[in-house]
């Protein structure tokens, strides 16, 4: 029985959590929702920091809570790692002692990983003798992550670990998270309200709204739908699986192949044949009925209009299909009326820019 299975009912002043889901037992699952939607409360229930009046929780076959049977495992008896919004490092302990806090309390047979390896992955080997108040925000959060990983968790919970950081600090941590994603063999639940962040690291997405799970699914599928709250986000856009087919040294470009055609992006330093996920923002896709004539836009893909959804401010979200690959385009009502765009029509999608993720 692999997977994270839970159902929680919890009432707090003015807020009700009523969430039930079965999430994958591997990879990074993002919990996405507006602030106040209950993401953090859900995560705290899973950690046992909050005890739901009615609750069931099973992690890869092991039951941590079953209120019907009166079972509630307190947090210190759950093999988990929790990364808080603020790093919450112990101020009286050096980085090394912080990292080893959970490790020393883990029975020898259950220990996984080791200090040196974690320090390598997170780039914190130089900081071991410092106190938390001598670290930058980004360093603190990396140490907090290392401390959670050295607790030999069966489940890693991350509550907006980058929310308290500014943009450069975020950019500094991102590569470490991506490396963690590649190495971790445990499920990770990652709470965020930043679409860009989750598009880069998550495999699976659960949307939470007003205390319950609205919808869940694989990332690409969720990003390709036009009627979910994420489609209304400024950062909405499809995720496309591609493969590197060729490098163009003259123009400093890389050719990416996907089911519906080919896309050119700025040169990527990866080997030909490697898979690559890219993201095309709906705001960067415009539609034309004819193949565009002379234009500076490199990427034009022929596609079929599958469905459309009205959005606010006179805009419309269009889902296209390009040879089996979904694409999203956000256009104005006026353009739709002028071009007479309808479901089933064949159009040319002009892609202004491409975001390369993982």
């Amino acid at each position, binding site marked *: 029985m692999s997977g994270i299975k839970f159902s929680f009912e919890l009432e707090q002043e003015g807020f009700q959590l009523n969430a039930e889901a079965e999430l994958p037992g591997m990879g990074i699952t993002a919990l996405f929702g507006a602030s106040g939607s209950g993401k953090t409360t859900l995560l705290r229930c899973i*950690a046992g*920091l909050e005890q739901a009046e009615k609750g069931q929780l099973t992690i890869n076959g092991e039951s941590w809570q079953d209120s019907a049977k009166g079972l509630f495992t*307190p*947090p*210190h*008896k*759950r093999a*988990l*790692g*929790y990364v*808080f919004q*603020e790093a*919450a*490092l*112990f*101020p*009286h302990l050096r980085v090394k002692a912080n990292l080893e*806090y*959970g490790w020393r*309390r*883990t029975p020898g047979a259950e220990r996984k990983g080791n200090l040196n390896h974690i320090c390598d992955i997170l780039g914190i080997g130089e900081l071991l003798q410092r*106190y938390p*108040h001598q670290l930058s925000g980004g360093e603190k959060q990396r140490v907090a992550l290392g*401390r*959670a990983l050295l*607790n030999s968790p069966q489940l890693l919970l991350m509550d907006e670990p980058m929310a308290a950081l500014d943009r450069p600090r975020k950019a500094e941590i991102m590569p470490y998270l991506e490396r963690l994603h590649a190495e971790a063999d445990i499920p990770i639940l990652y709470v965020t309200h930043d679409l860009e962040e989750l598009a880069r690291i998550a495999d699976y997405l659960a949307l939470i709204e007003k205390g319950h799970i609205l919808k869940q699914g694989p990332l690409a599928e969720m990003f390709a739908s036009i009627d979910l709250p994420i489609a209304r986000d400024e950062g909405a856009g499809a995720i496309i699986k591609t493969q590197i087919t060729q490098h163009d040294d003259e123009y400093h470009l890389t050719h990416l192949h996907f089911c519906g055609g080919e896309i050119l992006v700025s040169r990527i330093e990866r080997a030909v044949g490697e898979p690559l996920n890219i993201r095309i923002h709906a705001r960067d896709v415009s539609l034309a009925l004819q193949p565009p004539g002379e234009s500076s836009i490199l990427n034009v893909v022929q596609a079929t209009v599958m469905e459309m959804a009205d959005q606010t401010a006179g805009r419309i979200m269009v889902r296209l299909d390009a040879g089996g690959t979904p694409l999203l385009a956000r256009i104005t009502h006026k353009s739709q009326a002028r071009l007479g765009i309808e479901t089933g029509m064949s159009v040319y999608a002009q892609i202004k820019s491409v975001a390369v993720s993982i």
Partner: protein
Amino acid sequence: MEAADISALWVTLRLALTTTLILLLLGTPLAWWLAQTQSRFKTAVEALVALPLVLPPTVLGFYLLIALAPGGIIGGFTTHGLAFSFTGLVIGSALYSLPFVVQPLQNAFGSINPLNLEAASTLRASPLDRFFSIVLPLSRPGFITAATLGFAHTVGEFGVVLMIGGNIPGETQVLSIAIYDHVEALEYAQAHWLSGGLLLFSFTILFLVYRQNSRWPHS
């Protein structure tokens, strides 16, 4: 110094040390409870703890005298009662110095970020483990303040001792009482020696505490 003064000094130190140790042992759980609880009895307990701050020592001493007497609610458990004994003095001092130990501890516990305790609980630390590995070290300044204030306040105690002590040399005669006796007997030289000594002692101890706490790097 006369032999009687040395013996009074010895009784005083023994009393202050015993009282401080007992207060740290009993005051720590009480202060922790006060810092954490949302019980409706909290305010009443806080007021009780603070009573010795405002009550004339003679009032406390008077009730203690009755309670410690043979047949009193405390003294009744013993054959001869506890009034006019060292044990009786320890009980009286512990009550009298209680707020000086509990309040700094309660403040120290209350200023610990609860996030630190939650983080520790997600890192396999049981509640007792969290207390010893997180709460105690983070409250070190509070403990130093509590211990020195409790000790110093017991050394300086007069009214309660006067009521329940009985001024028995070597048993219940403490420095403050010895000073009083010297003044009564117009032995100003001895009174000067003891008073000046106590003054210097009190200043030094407070100075050391404040210096220590201002150097504490994590507060």
